[in-house]
């Protein structure tokens, strides 16, 4: 049984696990692009864009691409904005972890011994003082002072381009997703679930919307760590764009943390567990679509897997050194009930007698450019608003009524600058930060089959609505929404929001 450990608890900046990782990454980077167990091949498994790879120096004219058969089987596979997001990435991590371990085993001066226990570390950026990029990645040098540290990447700009400081700002990420009881949700405006919505093989454009963990903190960390030039949308960090993210060695520590959070969620009593539907368990191949496949050492032979194969990390041979969940009373549902002055009751998730209904919408599309914040008024329907008010009053009065949930949908966000992060305010309360990871592909409709619909973000604004209700301020015709760029957005990137809607999820 292998144990994946917190990168900040390895016994120093260059703890053994990180030192061996760096050595293996160096060896993998030396392998040819066409080899299935090379560093760049693994990057291409996540995503590939010939033009971007060339301009970033990851594809030279002399490089031979992998064969068409290899690319068809393995490349451009990453699953995003889908209920396959978590299981696909679990398999991807397993494959690279085994590949790294196999490389370590062959390295001199203790590699064979180290490989017996080596596991991928994870970066838990939610811990105070552990939100800075782990030092081994931030230094251009090896611990002995020699340059060409393979964990160091110049195209990693952090949240403030030009500052050379890479860290995750604590106020732009959160773990509220852990409070979501259902793994899968709906595409009709309500909760998308912890793990994401039902889709087929989902890579590239036509992204409907993100599961809660994928949206926050996963997407935000990609964009906050990768960053980009606010004046030039062609200059961005490797982590910022799905087509280059797998090339940055920090990617795998980020995803190990996301994978760990999936296990944390599964350990919570209120979580309903992973889906049992055949379409999830058996993966997209069961609906006539492409299957999940990874190359494995020693020869790069294919390993096909399904989400059903990925549900038990014990069976897969590993665990994490910390799978502790946040306290129940710190979870969003419990906090809401406390704020509403209501007796505690368990969270139930979406039941058959619940429905999702439109509560309001704004009038027109919004353009985001430069630093300027954009304001819009989301008109609310009186009848639906009344249903919410009546429900919240009933929650306080009765012991079993579940509170309605209200969601703000930021829809059809298009643009060519994935490094964009936007803060969303409703009536001057900060709802969350959204990050446009994947927006470029979702806009251009990757593969040339027409204009993409962009990304849609679903934000839970139930707590804000509760506050309005408690201060008798919910009886309004519209909600004022403000979108504030965290960093300036290049005008040429054409970042826009198609529509902002509000939905009620309840009985």
């Amino acid at each position, binding site marked *: *049984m*292998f144990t994946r450990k917190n990168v900040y608890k390895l016994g120093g900046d260059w703890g053994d696990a990180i030192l061996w990782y760096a050595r293996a990454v160096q060896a993998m980077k030396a392998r040819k692009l066409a080899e299935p167990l090379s560093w760049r091949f693994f990057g291409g498994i996540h995503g590939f864009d010939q033009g971007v790879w060339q301009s970033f120096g990851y594809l030279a004219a002399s490089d031979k691409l992998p064969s068409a058969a290899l690319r068809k089987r393995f490349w451009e596979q990453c699953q995003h904005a889908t209920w396959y997001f978590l299981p696909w990435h679990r398999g991807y991590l*397993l*494959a690279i972890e*085994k590949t790294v371990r196999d490389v370590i085993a062959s390295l001199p001066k203790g590699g064979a011994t180290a490989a017996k226990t080596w596991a991928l570390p994870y970066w838990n950026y939610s811990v105070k003082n552990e939100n800075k990029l782990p030092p081994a990645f931030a230094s251009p040098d090896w611990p002995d002072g020699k340059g060409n540290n393979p964990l160091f990447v110049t195209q990693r700009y952090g949240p403030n381009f030009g500052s050379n400081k890479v860290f995750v700002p604590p106020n732009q990420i959160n773990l509220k997703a852990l409070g979501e009881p*259902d793994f*899968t*949700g*709906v*595409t*009709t*405006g309500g909760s998308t679930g912890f793990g994401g*919505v*039902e889709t*087929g093989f989902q890579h590239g454009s*036509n992204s409907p919307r993100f599961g809660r963990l994928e949206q926050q903190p996963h997407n935000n960390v990609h964009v906050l760590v990768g960053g980009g030039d606010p004046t030039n949308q062609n200059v961005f960090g490797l982590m910022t764009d799905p087509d280059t993210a797998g090339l940055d060695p920090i990617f795998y520590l980020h995803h190990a943390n996301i994978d760990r959070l999936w296990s944390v969620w599964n350990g919570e009593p209120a979580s309903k567990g992973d*889906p049992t*539907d055949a379409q999830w368990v*058996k993966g997209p*191949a*069961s*609906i*006539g*679509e492409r299957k999940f496949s990874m190359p*494995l050492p020693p020869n790069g*032979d294919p*390993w*096909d*897997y*399904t989400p059903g*194969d990925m549900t038990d990390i014990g069976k*897969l*041979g*590993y665990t994490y050194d910390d799978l502790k969940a946040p306290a129940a009373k710190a979870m969003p549902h419990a906090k809401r009930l406390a704020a509403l002055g209501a007796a505690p009751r368990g969270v139930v998730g*979406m039941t*058959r007698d619940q429905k*999702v*209904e*439109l509560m*309001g*919408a704004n*009038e027109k599309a919004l353009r985001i450019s430069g630093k300027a914040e954009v304001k819009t008024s989301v*008109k609310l*329907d009186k*009848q*639906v608003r009344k249903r919410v008010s009546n429900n919240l009053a009933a929650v306080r009065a009765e012991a079993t009524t579940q509170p309605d949930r209200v969601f703000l949908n930021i*829809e*059809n966000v298009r643009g060519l600058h994935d490094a964009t992060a936007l803060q969303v305010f409703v009536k001057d309360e900060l709802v969350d930060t959204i990050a446009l990871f994947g927006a470029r592909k979702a806009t251009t*409709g990757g*593969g*040339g*089959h*027409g204009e993409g*619909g962009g990304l849609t973000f679903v934000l839970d604004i139930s707590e804000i609505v509760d506050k309005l209700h408690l201060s008798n301020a919910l009886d309004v015709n519209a909600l004022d929404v403000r979108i504030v760029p965290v960093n300036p957005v290049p005008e040429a990137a054409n970042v826009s929001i*198609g*529509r902002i*809607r509000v939905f009620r999820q309840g009985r």
Partner: protein
Amino acid sequence: MTPAAFERWSIRAPLLLGSGAAWIALIVQPQVCSLHAGLGPVTRESALMFAAMMLPLVAGPIRHVCNQSLARRRWRAAALFLAPYALLWTAAGIVLMEIAPRLSVYAAVVLIALWQFSPAKQLCVNRCHSFADLSAFGVRADYDALAFGSTHAVWCIASCSGLMLLPMLLPAGQVIAMAAITLWLLSEKLDKPAKPQWALRGPAKAARIAQYWLIRPILSRSVSPSS
């Protein structure tokens, strides 16, 4: 059943019932194939064909209309979407019924095949997958639903007319052929939007799904990575 699947079936079920009733009517009533029989009967025939073949295919757009409409306006919005959609399809059906007997079967089949495999067909199918964004309030909401119904009908008619002409070319067994074409069109709907190009387009995905479930014990065996 996932919450999303439950939502889908709550729209799909009534549409399938409506379609089923139309199929029964088509089977039991004598068929009318051209305007010689009178505009009334031919319109009725075309409307029944529309209900039988297209109602199952229109679940997605109707769900979209319901989702983007306030509860108090939902029936109205769905009706404003369906009305132009049904009218345009019924008219298209009458046109198809009129031209079918005037075509040489072989020439028609060649033309239909050319259209089916052409980039233009893929472009129309892609447009069918793209749903208009609808306003929520007032006259604008009514207009958007009507406009969506009309444009969606145009792309649907362009995509499907070729295949729908096929049963009308047959001397007998049109209803069975129509049923087969309906299944073909449903299978086409399963595919995601793709690059418009020349390609052999058919119900390949449905075939893959059938193949997966038939030889599942062999396919589901995967090499599990051992530690």
